[in-house]
C-alpha cells in the first residue's frame, strides 16, 4: 500500500513536472530554425573583377588561381527560415521582372513562390520577408507573398529618397539619365516597380520599418549594416541546430570575400562598413563558415561547405538544405 502510494505520488509529480515544462520545451524549439537556401536565378558570365576588384582577371595569372578566372556566374540566393510553428521567413526575395532576363544575362530563373513549393512551402504560408536591402534583385518578388510582412530599414528608404531629390549634378541621382545603365550611382537599383511594391506593403499595413538593430522573435535578430552595400543594409542572425547563421544579402555578396577580407559588389558602399559587417559575422557566429552570402559563385558546392548539401531543382535552379530543426523533415529528394 505504502509503496503503491509512493509510486503514484512519484508519477503524479513527474506528470506535473512534464506538464509545467512542456511550454518551456516548445518555447526552446521555437527559437531554433531550419534553414534552406534557394537559387532564384543566376547572372551569367559576370567579369570577376567587376564583382570583386581583388579578383580581377590577369591573363598571365595561373588559371583557376585568385586572378586566373575571367568570368563567374552569380547565383541570386534567398534564405528560407522555418520555425517550429507556422513561422516561415524569407531573407531577401529574389525578383520576377522576367522582361529583364535577357538584359541581365539571367539563367535558371523560376518564380520564387513556385520554388518554395519544392520545399513544401506555399506562398501564402510565408509570414515575413526581411530584405537585406531594397535592390530589385533582392526585393523584387514581394507581390508573390501577399500575407508576408516586409521588414526594411528606414535608413534604406531615406537613402533612396535623398538621392531621388538631390538637386545637384545629374549623376548624383536615384535614377540614371543614361539608357546604358545607372551603374554605381548613389541610389541605382530601385526601379519604379520595386519601389511601388515596397510602398504597396506599407500602404496595406504589411510592413515594419526597422530602425537599426531589432529582435524579430526569439532566435531571429536584425543587425543594421548601414552603407555596407546600400544606405540601409541589414543582416539577419538566425539561431539553428548548427549554431548561429548570419545572412548578409549584398553586404555579404561573396563568401570568399568574407573569408579572405576582400570587398565584393561595391555599389552604394562604404568599404569600411562592409568589413565591419564581415566582422559582425565572425563575432556572432564564431568565424566565417556560417556567413550566408547572396551571390557567392561557389554556392551549392563543396567549396562553400555550408551550402554543399545541395540539389538541382526546377529550371536548373539549385537549393541547399543547410540545417534542420528538431522534428523537421528533410526536403532533399
Amino acid at each position, binding site marked *: 500500500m505504502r509503496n503503491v502510494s509512493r509510486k503514484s505520488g512519484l508519477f503524479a509529480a513527474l506528470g506535473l513536472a512534464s506538464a509545467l515544462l512542456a511550454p518551456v520545451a516548445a518555447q526552446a524549439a521555437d527559437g531554433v530554425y531550419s534553414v534552406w537556401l534557394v537559387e532564384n536565378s543566376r*547572372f*551569367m*558570365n*559576370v*567579369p570577376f573583377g*567587376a*564583382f570583386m576588384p581583388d579578383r580581377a582577371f590577369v591573363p598571365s595569372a595561373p588559371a583557376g588561381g585568385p586572378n586566373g578566372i575571367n568570368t563567374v556566374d*552569380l547565383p*541570386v540566393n534567398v534564405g528560407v527560415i522555418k520555425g517550429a510553428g507556422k513561422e516561415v521567413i524569407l531573407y531577401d526575395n529574389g525578383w520576377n*521582372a522576367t*522582361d*529583364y532576363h*535577357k*538584359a*541581365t*544575362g*539571367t539563367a535558371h530563373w523560376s518564380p520564387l513562390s513556385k520554388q518554395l513549393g519544392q520545399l513544401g512551402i506555399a506562398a501564402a504560408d510565408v509570414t515575413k520577408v526581411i530584405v537585406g536591402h531594397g*535592390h*530589385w*534583385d533582392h526585393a523584387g518578388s514581394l*507581390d508573390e507573398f501577399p500575407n508576408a510582412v516586409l521588414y526594411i530599414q*528606414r535608413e534604406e*528608404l531615406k537613402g*533612396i*529618397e535623398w538621392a*531621388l531629390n538631390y538637386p545637384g549634378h545629374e549623376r548624383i*541621382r*536615384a*535614377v*540614371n*539619365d*543614361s*539608357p*546604358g*545603365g*545607372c*551603374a*554605381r550611382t548613389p541610389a*541605382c*537599383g*530601385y*526601379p*519604379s*516597380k520595386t*519601389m*511601388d*511594391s*515596397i*510602398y*504597396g506593403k*506599407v*500602404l*496595406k499595413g504589411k510592413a515594419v*520599418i526597422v530602425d537599426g538593430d531589432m529582435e524579430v522573435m526569439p532566435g531571429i535578430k536584425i543587425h543594421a549594416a548601414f552603407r555596407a552595400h546600400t544606405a540601409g543594409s541589414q543582416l539577419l542572425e538566425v539561431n539553428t541546430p548548427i549554431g548561429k547563421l548570419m545572412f548578409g544579402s*549584398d553586404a555579404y555578396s561573396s563568401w570568399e570575400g568574407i573569408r579572405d577580407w576582400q570587398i565584393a*559588389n561595391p*555599389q552604394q558602399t562604404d568599404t569600411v562598413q562592409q568589413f565591419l559587417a564581415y566582422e559582425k559575422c565572425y563575432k556572432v557566429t564564431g568565424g566565417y563558415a556560417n556567413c550566408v552570402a547572396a551571390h557567392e559563385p561557389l554556392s551549392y558546392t563543396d567549396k562553400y561547405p555550408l551550402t554543399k548539401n545541395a540539389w538541382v531543382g526546377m529550371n536548373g535552379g539549385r537549393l541547399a538544405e543547410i540545417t534542420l530543426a528538431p522534428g523537421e523533415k528533410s526536403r532533399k529528394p
Partner: protein
Amino acid sequence: MFKLSARNVVASLVLLGLILLGVQALKKFRQQSAGVTAPLATQPAAKPNFNTMYSAGAAPDRRAFSAAEEAYSVALWRVHDKVKTSSVQLSFAGLSYKLKELDRAGVKAKIAPQIDIYRDALQGIDRLSVPDSLKELHQTYKKAVTLYADASTEMVKIADDGNEQHLLDAHSKTAQAATLLLKVSAELWPGEFKPN
C-alpha cells in the same frame, strides 16, 4: 588555262584591292542604315558609357535598331527619364504619408508637380514620330503614363477627405504602370538597370 605572269599578278592584286574597298563601303553603309552612327547626330553630347563601368552580366542584348527606331528610342528616353523619377516620387509621397512624415496637404504638394510631369509627358509622347515596328510598344508606354496620370489625380484627393481608399485605388494603377514601364525599357533600354 590561267597563265601566271607579272601582268596577271598585278591585275589580280588590283582586283582584290577593289573587292576589299567594296566590302568596306558595304559594311559602312549597313552600319549607317542600322542606325549605329545615327544616334550620334541626335544625342546632345557624348556621355560616359556605364555599360563598360558596371559589374554585372554580359552586355545587354538588343537587336540592331534602324535609324528611325534609334531616334524614337532616344526621344522617348527624354520622356522616360522624367516619368520614372516621377513614378518613384509617387511611391515616396504615399510612403511618407503612411509613415506620418507628411500630412494630407504635404501629399498634395508633393504630387501636384507630378501631375504636370505626366501631362507634359503625354503631350511629348503624342508628338513623337513612331516607326511601325514600335507602335505597339509606344501604345504600351502611353498606357503606363496615362495610368500614372490617373493615379496621381486619385492620390491628391486624400487632401480633401483623408480617405485612404484613394491611395489604394491609385496603387492598383501604379502597380500596373510600373510593370508596363519595365516591359518597354527592357525592349528599348535593356541596360537601364543591371544586377546589383
